[in-house]
C-alpha cells in the first residue's frame, strides 16, 4: 500500500534557484528508505515538501489522503499528526525534562493516555532512566533519541528523520540506527536523509541518491 508518492516534483525559490528538479519516488507501508546526498543537494527541502512546510512549484506530493495541490493550510496540522518528524537540529525544550519534551507532542494534539504512551516510547528508545533529566544533562546521542521518541509518540505511519546520526560519535550513531531499524520492523515506514553513505548501507533498506536537486 502506497503511503507517499512524489510525482515529478520541482521547487524553484523566488530568486530563481532551483532546489529540486523533477523528483519522483514512492514509499509503501513499512518501507525504509535512505536519501543520501551532499550538503545543499535538496534532502531537507524534500522532507519539508513531504510535511508540507514547503510546496512544489511543479508536480505533486501525496501523503496518504493529503495532496500538496489540494491541501488547505488549516489541514496541515492533521497531516503532521500522522507523520513523525525528527528535525536536523534536535530542538529540545531546555526548561522541560525528557518526559515532558516527549509528552508535549501528545498534549499538542490532545492525545489520550499520555503517561502510559510516553513511558512506552521512552522504554522503546532506551530512555526510561533519563525521563526526569533535563536536556542539558543528555549526551548528543540521547538528545537524538528524545527527538525520535517525540516523533514516535503519536504513532506515525511514516517517520521522517533528518540527519539523525549527524554530530554524534560512531558508537552512538550505530545505536540510533539500530533503534530506527527496530522501529521500522514494528511497522513504521521511515525516510531518513543523510550525507553519510554508510548510514544507508547499515540500515539495509532502499537507498536513493540525490545531487543538485535531482535523484540519480
Amino acid at each position: 500500500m502506497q503511503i507517499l508518492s512524489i510525482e515529478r516534483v520541482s521547487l524553484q525559490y523566488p530568486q530563481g534557484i532551483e532546489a529540486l528538479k523533477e523528483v519522483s519516488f514512492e514509499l509503501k507501508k513499512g518501507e525504509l528508505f535512505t536519501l543520501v546526498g551532499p550538503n545543499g543537494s535538496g534532502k531537507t527541502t524534500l522532507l519539508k515538501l513531504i510535511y508540507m512546510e514547503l510546496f512544489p512549484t511543479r508536480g505533486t506530493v501525496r501523503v496518504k489522503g493529503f495532496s500538496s495541490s489540494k491541501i488547505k493550510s488549516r489541514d496541515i496540522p492533521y497531516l503532521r499528526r500522522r507523520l513523525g518528524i525528527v528535525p536536523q537540529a534536535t530542538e529540545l525544550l531546555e526548561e522541560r525534562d525528557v518526559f515532558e519534551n516527549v509528552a508535549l507532542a501528545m498534549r499538542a494534539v490532545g492525545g489520550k493516555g499520555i503517561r502510559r504512551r510516553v513511558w512506552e516510547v521512552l522504554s522503546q528508545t532506551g530512555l526510561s532512566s533519563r525521563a526526569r533529566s533535563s536536556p542539558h544533562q543528555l549526551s548528543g546521542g540521547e538528545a537524538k533519541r528524545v527527538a525520535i521518541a517525540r516523533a514516535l509518540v503519536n504513532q506515525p505511519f511514516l517517520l521522517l528523520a533528518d540527519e539523525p546520526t549527524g554530530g554524534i560519535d560512531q558508537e552512538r550513531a550505530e545505536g540510533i540506527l539500530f533503534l530506527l531499524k527496530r522501529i521500522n520492523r514494528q511497522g513504521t515506514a521511515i525516510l531518513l536523509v543523510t550525507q553519510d553513505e554508510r548510514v544507508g548501507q547499515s540500515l539495509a533498506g532502499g537507498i536513493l541518491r540525490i545531487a543538485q536537486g535531482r535523484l540519480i
Partner: protein
Amino acid sequence: MAFDRLYGIKEVLFSFRRYPARFLVSLLTISLSLLLLGAFLCLTFNLKLTLRNLRAKVEIKAFLKDGITQSQMEELAGRVRLIQGVKDAILITKEEALLDLQREFGKEFIDDLGANPLPPSLRVRLREGWRKGEIVQGIAARIDSLDGVEDVEYGGKWLERLDRFVFHLLLLDLILGVIIGLSSFMSVSNVVSRTFLARRKEVEIMRLVGATRRFIQRPFLYEGLFQGFLGGVIGAVLLYLFFLLLSPQLPSEAILSPKVLGLQVGLGLAFGGLGGRFSFGR
C-alpha cells in the same frame, strides 16, 4: 476545546513559575504603562467635569419691559419654557431684583438709589448640550423676539471664548490621548511579544508535531490577557494611591472616578489580548 483551554491555562502558569523574573519585569512595564494611561484618563475626566460645571453656569437673562403685569410675566415665562433647549425660566420681579442688589451692595446703596430702577427679568437656564455659543445665541434671539422682552444678555463674548478654549483643549487632549494610548498599547504588546519570541522554539516544535494554530496561540493569548489584566489592576491601585497621596495638593473638586479605574483594567485586558494575538500573527 475544553482541553485546549485547560492546556492554555496550564502553560501560562508554567511560564510564570519557570520565568518569574521575566514575568515580574513584564508586569512592572505593563503596570507603569497603564498607570500613565490611567493618570491621563483621570486628568481628562476631571477636565471634562470642570468644563461641564463651567457650562452649567451658562444662562440667559431676559430683561422685561417696565409696566408688564404679573400675569403677563407668568405667561411670558411659560412661553420661554416651551422653547426647545430651555430647562427652566425663573421669574425675578422688580422687588426681588432690588433685594438681590441689596444683598450684594448693602442697604445704604439701595437707599441712595431712591426709586427702584431695576426691571423685572427672567433667568433662563438651559439643558445640557444646549449651552454652546451658537445655540445659546439662537435661543436668546427667540426670547428677545417675544412680546414684553426689552433686552437679553447671555455673555456672548465670554461664551465664544469658552467654546474656542474648550475646542482647543479637547483637541490637545485627544492628540495626547492617542499618543499615550498608542504608546501604552505598543509597550504592552511589545512585552507580550517578547514572551512569544522567548518561546519561539516551542512554537516550532508544536507546529512540527501537528498542533493547530489556535492551540499554539491560546497560551500566548491567555498570557497576554492575564498580564494585561493584572498590569491594569496594579496600575489602578497605584493610581488610587497616588491620588490619595496628592489629594491635599489637588483642587477640592478633583475626583478619581471608578470609571477611570475600570477603564484602566479594561484597556490592560484588551491591550494584553491584542498584544498576544498580534505577536502570534507576526
